[in-house]
């Protein structure tokens, strides 16, 4: 198993090389950051000066080689817009996205898996229909709309939640990991913990609907297939209680596809939920990367691409390793 894991991690490197080159290519042919920096003050001379300053007049292979050279030294470069080291901005924004993604996935799993199990166990009943309607609505509902509705109803009208941000004004927290909930626990800061959870609730709810709906549907399909197997009939014939049949025998074998979907969805969530982050003023990576793309802030976009690609690869690896844990028949390596 260890050699398998190491081999998979090493294979990240050629993947990243290919991805960063393609990204560089696409960004280079779609323009430069002049207009983002200059706006209506754009002139040929000013843009030329910017292009000269950032080496954008060099041939593409030269630019790319220069970039790779800095990357090898662990330097993601500086943001063209803010001039700050990209790695500093990454360090600030990734924990925010990670915290939101993990919270959303927890909610998605807590809702989706039981919903799928119930639907499968009461197949073709009203419960099944209701559960799948809920899942269909969840996957169909635009996140942007849902987020606004949550803010309007639960924050504005009922005042139960804040409208956005990660912490209330005046609430202090010692930053260790950047994950406010975890940092509050580690520093035994009850006030900050409650406030962080309070702020996390609405965006996590909004973000969890689509993955939750996917998880519910795949859990149901997988459970139906599992419940139709001969060994389930045998287990029932042997007089086992239904809870044990479903929870112990059917569920365990149904989880493989569910774990795959959870992994994929987690990767998507960690890529940053732009709309949710924008609406809830959540200072994460999604909005940061999208703004960088529209501003042609190449160093930031490249950093984002590298981070996302690495996240997907690592998550896929974790999913693959979990197969071996879930299904003893699976042998890795």
């Amino acid at each position: 198993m260890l050699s398998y894991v190491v081999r998979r991690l090493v294979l990240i490197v050629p993947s990243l090389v290919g991805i960063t080159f393609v990204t560089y290519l696409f960004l280079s042919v779609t323009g430069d950051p002049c207009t983002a920096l200059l706006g209506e003050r754009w002139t040929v001379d000013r843009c030329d000066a910017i292009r000269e300053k950032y080496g954008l007049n060099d041939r593409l292979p030269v630019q790319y080689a220069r970039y790779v050279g800095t990357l090898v030294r662990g330097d993601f470069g500086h943001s063209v817009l803010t001039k700050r080291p990209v790695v500093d901005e990454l360090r600030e924004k990734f924990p925010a996205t990670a915290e939101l993604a993990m919270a959303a996935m927890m909610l998605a799993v807590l809702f989706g898996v039981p919903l799928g199990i119930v639907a499968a166990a009461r197949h073709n009943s009203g419960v099944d229909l209701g559960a799948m309607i809920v899942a269909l609505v969840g996957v169909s509902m635009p996140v942007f709309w849902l987020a606004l509705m949550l803010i309007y109803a639960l924050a504005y009208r009922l005042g139960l939640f804040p409208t956005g941000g990660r912490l209330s004004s005046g609430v202090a927290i010692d930053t260790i990991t950047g994950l406010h909930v975890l940092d509050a626990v580690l520093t035994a800061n009850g006030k900050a913990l409650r406030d962080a959870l309070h702020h996390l609730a609405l965006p996590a709810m909004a973000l969890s609907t689509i993955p939750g709906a996917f998880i519910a549907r795949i859990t149901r399909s997988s459970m139906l297939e599992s419940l139709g197997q001969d060994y389930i009939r045998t287990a029932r014939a042997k007089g086992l209680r239904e809870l044990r049949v479903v929870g112990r025998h059917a569920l365990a074998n149904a989880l493989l596809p569910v774990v795959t979907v959870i992994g994929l969805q987690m990767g998507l969530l960690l890529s940053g939920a732009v709309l949710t982050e924008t609406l809830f003023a959540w200072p994460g990576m999604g909005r940061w990367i999208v703004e960088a793309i529209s501003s042609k802030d190449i160093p930031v976009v490249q950093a984002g691409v590298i981070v996302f690609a690495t996240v997907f690869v690592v998550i896929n690896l974790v999913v693959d390793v979990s197969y071996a844990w879930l299904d003893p028949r699976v042998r890795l390596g």
Partner: protein
Amino acid sequence: MLRFAPRAAQSACLALSLVALAACGGEPTAPPPEPVAEEISTVELEPAAPATDPERLIFAHPDDATKLDPADVTDSESLLVTWHLYEGLTRYVPGTTEIEPWLATAWTTSDDGLEWTFTLREGVTFHDGTPFDAEAVVWNFQRWSDKAHPMHFADWEFTYWEYMFQGFAGDLDDAGEPKSVVAGIEAVDPTTVKLTLNRPSAPLLQNLAMGNFGFSSPAAVEASGANYGTPAGNPISAGTGPYMVEEWMADDHITVVAYDGYWGDAPETVRIEFSVIPDGSARYLSLATGEIDGMNQVNPEDIAQAEENDDIAVVLEPANNVGYLGFNQAHAPWDNLNCRLAVAHAIDKQAIVDTLYAGDAVVASQMMPPSLWGYNEGIEDWPNDLDAANAYMTTCRAEATVPDEVVFYVPPIQRFYFPKPKELGEWIQASLAGIGIVTRIESPEWGSTYIPDVRAGKHDLFLLGWGGDNGDPDNFLCQFFCGADASFNGDAEGNGLPPSVELDTLLREAATLSDQAARAAAYEQANAMIHDTVPSVPLVHRSPPVLFRSNVTGYTPSPLQTILTRVAKQ
């Protein structure tokens, strides 16, 4: 039957209740029917707007500052904060574009306008306690202007120095002459500096009042190095202003606190928190719930709602911008005055303002807003008159060849002067079709193509706008009509030409006049000339709204800055 079903339902309920408990944010095992006597619980359970700290004013804007060193920023989000941290030799009289002495209490000019001697205010300190004096002024000017200065960091731009003073030390134009207006600066004594110019600059005092030319403590910049102005700086910033930085949580908020050693009147509110809420609707909802006290960048659709909400006050800043339709006189028939007059009479500007704006714009009759001195009150705008438009069009067709299709550039994204550019473009297209001009709308990508194409004169007609920097008419009019690019006219090689040589000459001369009254008269004359020759059709001046909770007082709307120093919560 399936006896587990209730168990599964219980599992689902348990999951739901876990979320609800997390959402309540209180003790996870004790949802209290009555509020526990703790501040957080009361805020959570009360649906009414929470009472915010009277000593903390929370003002929301859509994006975080990029940097808190004004010398290197161009974005309004950074300047919103730095206006409260830094001061310059002069400042804008609150609510106007007039200037007044500030860190310089007086100044004299040599007869040739090339030497300016400033007397500095005494008793001023930077936020790090170091004194503001002539040496500090000289250090800052040299840092801004000289690329060789050790604190003029290589990957910083100091863009507005280049814009307003036309170049850095040592830059030469094609004739070998210094590009920069500023030749040098020296400390005459601890409270006197002498600024030497390469050529007279009438807008000098207006430029020096800009937020970009606030002074930083040399010691602070040297201590922080290239991290100055960033969250990693130590210190983050050190100006002489009434506020200093207390905390910067990147992409979340910046908190500034009143500076104890400020030389002037203490600010009304001890703390201001500049909070980042990117989405306009979310920002408005935060204001409506009372979570924040003020906001800018208001969605047009929220303005009407805000006006009906007794808890919110709508304040319109005097316009400092213009949105216009421009003609490319290098392309026939737009070099013909009758053709341009036909278009000027065909557009119903009032209907555009009434329909495409939310009460936050006025019709523009000139290419600079009324808030600027030099505005000509006597100009009567060309009326929307279809008969006159058709008559001019008939003459136009007799004198020139109107192409079958006219290329009409329309911005693809919202701009601060055109919140609905697509609708505006279609509106004007329909108006021109009514007098027989067929247009083809092109909206190339803003980020890479639109402005370069316009500057290169690839259009026949174009929509664009401009926001003023320093309250000086030259910043509007010469920007447009001094032939720096081919937007309004060009030669066969695509080089820029002024649409009118006479206008160009007038504007260039006006920029050198030292007498303010003479300058104002020159710009009024220029505005009249622009009106008569129609190089463009000014359409709107937009007044950006700022919203506050009704209990917030003391804000002075301004065309150039958002200053919260005198704002307090009742």
